[in-house]
């Protein structure tokens, strides 16, 4: 289940869907990202998230497929918000359920890391009346390449 949407999401609903997704599920790992000051600018009040409709969903589907090939993944749910988001709002959710703890953690972290480096989303930081496109961080590229 992959969704790209402006609306907020409820991690509790996603958790329930993961838990209900089938037998043999022993492990559910989730990650939620919240809007915070990236440190590039002082006094950030929010973000604007742009994406490439169509490509975004395809890329995320590919990442989930790749994770499912590498680990035991019974169900994966990915939500990424777009549009205007205030500081503290939820921006991204990745949840994986698996028969095994290690697989749930690995698949969840892999999808999240790869999302940051290969899904076509761009963040603009809003600071009062100015705005500023966030630059890609070398650390994110490194984290994603460590999975290769």
């Amino acid at each position, binding site marked *: 289940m992959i969704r790209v949407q402006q609306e907020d999401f409820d991690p509790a609903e996603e958790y329930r869907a993961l838990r209900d997704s089938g037998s043999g599920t022993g492990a559910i790992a989730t990650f939620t990202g919240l809007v915070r000051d990236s440190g590039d600018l002082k006094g950030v009040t929010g973000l604007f998230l*742009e994406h490439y409709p169509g*490509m975004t969903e395809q890329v995320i589907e590919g990442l989930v497929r790749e994770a499912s090939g590498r680990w035991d993944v019974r169900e994966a749910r990915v939500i990424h918000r777009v549009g205007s988001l205030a500081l503290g709002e939820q*921006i*991204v959710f990745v949840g994986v359920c698996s028969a095994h703890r290690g697989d749930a953690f690995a698949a969840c972290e892999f999808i*999240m890391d790869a999302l*940051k480096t290969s899904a076509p*989303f761009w963040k603009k930081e809003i600071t009062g009346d100015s705005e500023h496109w966030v630059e*890609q*961080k070398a650390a*994110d590229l490194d984290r994603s390449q460590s999975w290769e």
Partner: protein
Amino acid sequence: MSADNTITVKFFARLREELDTASLTVEAESDLTAGKLLQSLAARGGSWTQLAGAHPVMIAVNQVMTKPDTVLQPGDEVAFFPPVTGG
């Protein structure tokens, strides 16, 4: 993808804003690659010159990330954008 002899070019994020262009179309030419298309757009001058290499530009053809030497076909959708920063 359009059925005629053109290629759709899309721009996102900082590029979309600085070029003041979300989308345009160019004529398909034989042996036109994504990289050559990028260079011909950079030759328009003004803010377009940044496509010549001042900033990293990522390329997708038909919504799949690809390299500059990918040959473009009529009807293709090419996108140019800065490195992604989601998540």
